[in-house]
């Protein structure tokens, strides 16, 4: 026994010795001493490297729906309109746009002398071609429905594009801000579903594709013929690194300039590491989605508003924000991004009030049974929260389970893979309560989610919400193109929704971004459109560039 112990101690001592020796032999990376905090005048050039978790399947966004594709494609293709930093419309390819008095016709006037990055002119014929492409029956796109409402599209001259609708349709303007215009001269007569163009695109925006190394990275280089002017950073590289921890290591090693951080990295790791703070600036902006608890309103007892409100009062939203997001989020009270015109500033989320929750349940006829569970007509208040494999949602469900237990509600949690979750439960309406997220919409139209007509399998009002007043507001909202009148409609809509509590708004998380201090010109704090709204003005001063890039 003693022998074997001494053998083991020999092995351990050897291992430690080896580790120390290897550490001592290592050399620390030599970093030039530069002061990243100095002010530098704007200049052109340099390379910015970021990391994305997935590789785009192609760069034609009407077909490749994933976020990785639009993140790259938005630098290559232009739309007729875009959002400014306050999320109001402004022209991108369009110099101006006009809506007819009957609100059924929108006429876009293109900017003069627009060009594709291959030098060919960009005209209204390209816009018409793109519209035909997305509405073509053989185009494999799920995003055609908004464009199919156009009953007539025409390009009377090179700079004019006109669309007519049977009825006024307010989300139409937004739809034209989301359609990447494609070049007719390269795609006419080709099969859009299966074209090498998707991996070798020609656009009209700030950048053009330089090289796509499959599975590794995409690099874009500034497009001298850009319709918007020349961006200050010459080259953008997106590396595909699926693992978040590996991305963070690459960031620490100075190999990427920016990444989206997790709350732990933002709130715990960065503050504890001065060497990171020296090199990186942290930014936070409200993200584009909110997390909610949605009730199946067709099932008892969720058809009773008092029960829904009781649950709303019984959940401590701040606890979720602190516990799940480490404080990196905000409570919301409407499906609109706070700070934009659509968000009703008078609405407040339900405060945490277990006593009120208890009282509401008692008012609805529930009493505690001998196990401490609320019960009505011999039936205990017990249900299952369904959610998908998403750590934040799973943790939220656990915290909610505990809070609801305190007022006598028995909750079980079930976590599922996304496609099975949608196919087996959401589509069939076979659930009690779901924990999910929706976008904080830029266009306020929420018809598909809240109108009572949208409850068939595969449609989005799967919780079964039905309110005549809301129906009418949603119908009016999509017919109204005047932004101020529209705003009043959606403020009222959000107020009724909050009062009715068909869902419990839990939180909207912040987008957390670390960006290397070599990159200057970033707006902080972020406007409603986010820090990325003016990437064309970001710049990298020559002394701060990487060696291999400033050669």
């Amino acid at each position, binding site marked *: 026994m003693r022998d*074997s112990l001494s*053998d*083991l101690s*020999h*092995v351990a001592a*050897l291992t430690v010795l080896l580790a120390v020796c290897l550490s001592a032999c*290592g*050399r620390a*990376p*030599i970093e030039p001493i530069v002061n990243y905090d100095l002010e530098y005048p704007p200049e052109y050039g340099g390379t910015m490297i970021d990391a994305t978790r997935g*590789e785009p*399947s*192609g760069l034609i966004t009407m077909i490749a729906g*994933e976020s990785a594709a639009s993140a790259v494609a938005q630098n290559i293709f232009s739309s007729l309109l875009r959002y400014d930093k306050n999320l109001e419309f402004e022209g991108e390819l369009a110099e101006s746009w006009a809506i007819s008095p009957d609100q059924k016709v929108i006429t876009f006037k293109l900017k003069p002398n627009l060009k594709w990055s291959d030098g060919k002119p960009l005209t209204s014929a390209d816009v018409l071609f793109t519209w035909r492409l997305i509405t073509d*029956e053989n185009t*494999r*796109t*799920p*995003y*055609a*429905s*908004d464009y199919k409402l156009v009953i007539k599209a025409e390009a009377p001259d090179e700079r004019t594009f006109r669309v007519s609708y049977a009825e006024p349709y307010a989300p139409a303007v937004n739809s034209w801000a*989301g359609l990447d215009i494609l070049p007719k001269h390269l795609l006419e007569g080709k099969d859009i*579903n*299966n074209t*090498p163009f*998707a*991996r070798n695109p020609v656009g009209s925006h700030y950048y053009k594709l330089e090289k796509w*190394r*499959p*599975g*590794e*990275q995409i690099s874009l280089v500034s497009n001298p013929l850009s319709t918007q002017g020349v961006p200050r950073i010459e080259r953008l*590289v997106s*590396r*595909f*690194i*699926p*693992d978040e*921890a*590996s991305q963070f*290591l*690459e960031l*620490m*090693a100075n*190999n990427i300039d920016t990444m989206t951080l997790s709350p732990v990295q933002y709130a715990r790791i960065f503050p504890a590491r001065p060497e990171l703070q020296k090199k990186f600036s942290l930014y936070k902006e409200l993200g584009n989605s909110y997390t909610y608890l949605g009730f199946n309103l067709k099932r008892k007892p969720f058809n009773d508003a008092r029960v829904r409100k009781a649950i709303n009062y019984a959940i401590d939203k701040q606890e979720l924000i602190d516990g799940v997001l480490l404080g990196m989020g905000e409570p919301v009270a409407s499906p609109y991004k706070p700070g934009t015109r659509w968000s009703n500033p008078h609405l407040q989320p339900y405060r945490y009030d277990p006593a009120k929750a208890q009282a509401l349940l008692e008012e609805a006829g529930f009493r505690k049974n001998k196990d401490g569970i609320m019960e009505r007509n011999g039936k205990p208040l017990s249900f299952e929260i369904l959610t998908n494999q998403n750590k934040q949602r799973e943790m939220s469900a656990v915290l909610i389970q505990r809070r609801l237990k305190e007022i006598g509600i028995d909750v079980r949690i079930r976590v599922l893979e*996304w*496609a*099975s979750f*949608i*196919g*087996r439960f959401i*589509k069939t309406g076979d659930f009690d309560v779901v924990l999910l997220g929706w976008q904080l919409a830029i266009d306020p139209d*929420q018809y*598909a989610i809240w109108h009572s007509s949208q409850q*068939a399998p*595969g*449609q*989005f009002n799967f919780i079964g919400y039905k309110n005549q007043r809301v129906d009418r507001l949603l119908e009016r909202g999509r017919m109204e193109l005047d932004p101020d009148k529209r705003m009043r409609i959606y403020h009222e809509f959000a107020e009724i929704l909050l009062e009715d509590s068909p869902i419990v708004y839990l939180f909207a998380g912040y987008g957390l971004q670390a960006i290397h201090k070599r990159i200057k010109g970033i707006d902080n704090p972020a406007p409603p459109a986010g820090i990325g709204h003016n990437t064309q003005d970001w710049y990298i001063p020559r002394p701060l560039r990487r060696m*291999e890039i400033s050669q």
Partner: protein
Amino acid sequence: MLKYLLKRLFWMVPLLIGISLVSFLIIHLAPGDITMTEAGFDPKASEESRQKLRELYNLDKPVIVQYGLWLQRMAKLDFGTSFASHQRPVFWQTKDKNGNVTPGMIQEALPITLLINVLSLGLIILVALPLGVISALTQNRLPDRAITLFVFVGFAVPGFWLALLLMYWTGVVHDWLPISGLHSQDAEHMHWLAYTWDALKHLVLPVFISALSGLAGISLFVRNGMLDVLHQDYITTARAKGLPEHTVVYGHALRNALLPLITILGLSIPGLIGGSVIAESIFAIPGMGKLFYDAVLMRDFPVIMGILTIGSALTLLGNLMADLAYAWADPRVRRGVMQ
């Protein structure tokens, strides 16, 4: 022997069809399809559009009809095109009439995974064989204990954790090795020698990590095999005849101890192309493991079926090769095969 070989090859065809049918049915039993994962939860995508997509992908047809269509294509060795990725060919590149080449998905991912796994297999054999032999020869003494400790650590340490630790240590703390990816940023501008050196540096950690658990397993396997053989009567006889120790160990014992290794190596052929999701994700390597994982999540049926079919064919071939190699190495087995 030739008759045996032909018979085995002939039986592979119905076996492969059976495997593909079962795989096809199981994949389609899982709820959801590509239209649901792509835009299943986007209010901008209407149900009619998704239905239209289903028709375009043939997903509205009964599963057995879809299988028939798939089998028809497979008869011509056409693995079809991916649903998810702009209809890229699943297996091999295609060329359109303008001469544009679209590379196949497996064609791109396979060489990378194969390279890493062949290198790690080489490393395993190079290191595990001597370790196993030393361990057996020094049974219960210091080297044996040290190696056994290493084997246990190799089994117990989670690969992803060790990978991150090594990435941090060799990539962030010391600037020794690249952290992830296959090439450096400026690889295109490098001389070919520098390019190769750069690629090799990128491969060090992934190869080491994917070799680690195999290293532990095979060295233990060799140790136990050697111990078994060393206690056989013919080894005692050889020693009694006064043969030098190295002839006894390497000429008689090792050869016999290694016989079962042939089976293991034959069976590892499908593993060579399967890739590892975890290692490939951590090191950002676009290999087969990640391709398969992504395809399953996206319900990209043609890619899943392509990988499964190639995987099954290689497993069957691997088995056959292991049997043949075993017969070649062991006369007793060879006699059985001939009969």
